């Protein structure tokens, strides 16, 4: 007998899912809850084999519920029900310990497949979700090597190079055909963006970046 706890704030959805699950031989829904905190208590108390939890719930959401029940001494297999087909949610659910991620909009029969999969120790993702898409998303969400220099405006890059070449603000202004005050503003902005606080730091930065002074004459 597979014991199941159901957590969803919509009674109609809950009723539908219960009908679906109890129709399967060997499945028993032992508890139901309409919010996240109650679900965690129920799981703690009943120690079911499976928890079917909706991602969107009042109080604490399904992701948080998953994290908490997975920290229990004998955690259930968690099946996440969700409207969201976005990889970020799937990834978060899996990271928090969920074994399956089932899209609500899909055929409800998938839920049965999910229960079967998780009790036999497998992961289950509703189509069109796939491990490959999640991997791709994880790659995308990884931070890329990026330094502040890339975010300087073109003008700020020009000013940076001229400053590194030892030019004064009036000289830079004359060279770029802008006012000394504007040149001064560019210089302050780029130093702020680069996190530099002095002329010395600025020159050192330029040397490290191998910013060769352009010909300004």
């Amino acid at each position, binding site marked *: 007998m597979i014991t199941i706890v159901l957590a969803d704030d919509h009674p109609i959805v809950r009723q539908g899912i219960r009908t679906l699950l109890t129709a399967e031989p060997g499945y028993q829904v032992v508890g139901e809850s309409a919010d996240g905190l109650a679900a965690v208590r129920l799981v703690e108390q009943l120690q079911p084999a499976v928890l079917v939890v909706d991602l969107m719930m009042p109080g604490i*959401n399904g992701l948080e519920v998953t994290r908490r029940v997975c920290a229990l001494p004998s955690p259930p297999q968690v099946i996440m029900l969700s*409207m*969201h087909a*976005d990889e*970020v*949610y799937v990834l*978060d659910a899996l990271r928090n310990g969920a074994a399956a991620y089932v899209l609500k*909009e899909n055929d409800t029969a998938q839920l049965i497949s999910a229960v079967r999969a998780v009790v036999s120790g497998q992961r289950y993702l509703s189509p069109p979700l796939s491990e490959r898409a999640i991997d791709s*998303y994880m790659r*995308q*969400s990884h*931070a*890329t*090597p*990026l*330094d*502040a220099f*890339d*975010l*300087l*405006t*073109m*003008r700020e890059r020009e000013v940076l190079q001229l400053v590194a070449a030892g030019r004064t603000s*009036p000289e830079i202004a004359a060279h770029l055909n802008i*006012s*000394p*005050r*504007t040149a001064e503003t560019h210089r302050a*902005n780029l130093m*702020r*963006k680069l*996190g530099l606080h002095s002329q010395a730091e600025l020159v050192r930065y330029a040397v490290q970046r191998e910013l060769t002074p352009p010909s300004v004459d």
Partner: protein
Amino acid sequence: MPSRSLSVSAKTVRISVLEKRIATLEAALATQSQAAADLRRSEARLAVLADASHCFAAASTDLARLSRTMTGYVAHRIGDLCALRLISLDGTTLITAHTAHAHPEAQALVSAIDQIPQRVDVGHTRQVIRDGKPLYMPCVAQDSFRAAVPPQFLPYLDRFGVDSIIIVPLRERGQVIGTLTLTRNTGGAPYTPDDLAMLQDLADRAALVVAYAQLVGAWREATRIKDDTFALLNTIFASIPVGLGVLDADLRYIRVNQTLAAIDGLPAIVYPGRTPAELLSGLASAFEPFLRQVLTTGNAIHDVEIRGVTLTNPGEPRTWLTSYYPVRGNLHVVTGVGVVMVDITERTQAERVLRERDEQLRLAYDAAQLGTWRYDIVTGIIQLDARAQLHYGLKSDAVPAARILAQVHEDDRTVWWQTVSATADSGGDGRAMAEYRVVHPDGDVRWIATHARVYVADTGAGCHPVLSSGTSQDITTRKQVEDQVRAALAAEQQARAAAEQATLRIGRLQTMTAALAAALTRDDVVRIILDQICQATGAMSGTLLLRDARGDLLEIVGQTPPSVVQNPPRPTPLDAPLPSAQATRTQTAIWIESVAVGEAQFPGFGRQFNDHGISAYAALPLVTAGMGIGVLSLGFATTQTFSADDRVLLLALAQQCAQAIDHARLYAEVQEAHSRLQYLSHRLLETQEQERRHLARELHDEVGQALTGLRLSLELASRLQPEARADRLAEAHRATQDLITQVRALSLDLRPAMLDDMGLLPALLWQINRYREQTGITVDLRHWGLEKHMPPTVETVAYRVVQEALTNIARYAQVPTAIVSLLASPEQLLIQVRDVGLGFVLEEALSSARSSGLTGMQERVALLNGTLNIETAPGMGTCVTAELPLDAEP
């Protein structure tokens, strides 16, 4: 029936005659009662006048008593205040003889006011004195009356008030000699024309009495003076050591003094009525001819020596110097002769006395440091004593006149010659004095004063000056003191004038400051500065220059007087070598006192002074909050010294101007912010409405349609046999699926739940995927430091900035790729969205339909105190960079 008709007609005639008589009688009665009333009034007036005359008579010629009596009488009989004022002898002042008041409490006040003399040309009395006609104001118009009342009367006016007033002139032989004023306190009845007539009568009488009293006073004074003179003459007559005698037309003695009697050896009392021959048989024949000659000719005879014996010196003839004078009575007729006799027998003694006096004179000369000289006009030689030689810087006691002239300072030679000529002129009084400079051989310049007297000799062919002599005195010290005093006086006057000027200028400064404080807009401030600067500072011209928006140019915002130059004034670069630029840069005033100074400090600049007709220049920096915002330059028509006070004053003025300009700027900013806020509120509402419209259409057109289709499918299914339902239900299932997708898309478009649930990075990833799906543009997302959570406001703004920038790229850039970079540091989040597409002209975009998106971005960033920078140009791609601070919550 003719007789009857006649009789009736006769009766009618009689009745009509009777009626006429009755009417006449009634008229007569009315006239009579009128006359009786007039009579009563006249009698009352006469009684008053009679009483007054009695009083005046009692006062007699005592002016003070008369004044008291008359004013007291009128004050009590007619009421309430009566004042007698008399014009001073010089005609300028009105002196109050006395003011009486019917009420004792007012009397003290008016007596105090009486002490203050009043000028004849002020107050209500002025026109009375001028025209000689009464002023009659039965009911006083308070405001205009008060305005003309001299200030010393105001306390009285405030305390007791005046409701009715009469002022009549005191006329004496056609001339106004004073006024008689009668006023009634507040609450009194108006004066009647009778009161006026009576007061004028009283005044006329009083004028007579006053004139009489004045005459009597004058006569008494004259008598006293005459008596004094007589007493003095008598004393002189008796005590003078000269023999004096007066004889009548018959040459009988009237009177002689003791000295004359002593000369003759007779007692003085025997002389009156007797002739000289009766008294002095020996001497009479010697002077009687002169007495007769005076009687006959009326001319005096001077200095006649007679010799003879008298009873005093029977055996020893003596010599007298005698003079004879006509004594004139009324009508200038000679009524007698006066004799003066001086015994000159003791001539030797007199000569000795003379020598002593000469010596004394010498001593006096010495004491006064006087030199003496003699100028022999005939020979042209001037003799000088030792001190005179010192005075003229000469070492010779006799020199030609030309030698002296050579010593005189060349500027003063005319003076010297004029003096010499004056002394040589026989027609003059023979006296002259002059002050001139003498240059000593050692170069020392001394001031010399000379007094000269000329002596004339009768050569038979007329009178000629032959000799002049005089004194010389060194007055250098006195001159120096005089110069010092004159310089001190001039300095004092100058200082006073400067002080007055300063006071005037401070007043103008205050006016200007007040006007500036009241001005709100920059235009007003500039106008006030230009309108008033010249008057407030004494400058001839003023120019107001302010830094432009970028801060490196000085723009002329106004000139006074308005420039006549055709071309618009060129802005001055802030680093130009000009006073205005330097003053702004250094925030230090520049003072150029003269053309030369200007040229020295700013080569080329001082020379322009002449073009503008100015001689001095000041550049006053306008500084607010430590920032030089511009300069106020002033040109002066004359060379200036710019004293410390001047500088403080001008700098204070510049400070006021700077503050006013800054306030105007703040005011404009507030106005701008206010209108911006209004604009944004307006746009918020507009956007909200637009979103609602969009949402409503989506719900109705898409969701509504889908739901309708779903309902139709389900209805159809319910009517079908169970076995035929499956297809319909599958259809309904698909429709439901579509519906879910649609609602989800709608909700995500509005705001992705992911931004709230999962943070910025997942939301951006979702957005970029969706963007690629919708537009086919690949986005290269680069990020660093986005794992940590940032404030929701920052994440929302970042999300929207990227969304808006990407939307623009899709619409306008025509590129297959875009680069989005985000970099979060502890202090800030940097966002950059870049493409290498078409680019655009920023200014055009901001004024076109695209502007609402760009402006929206700017507004969102600005709300977080961030900055947004858009770099673009046609063909150069676009780079949008936003900086959002993280360390400070807005």
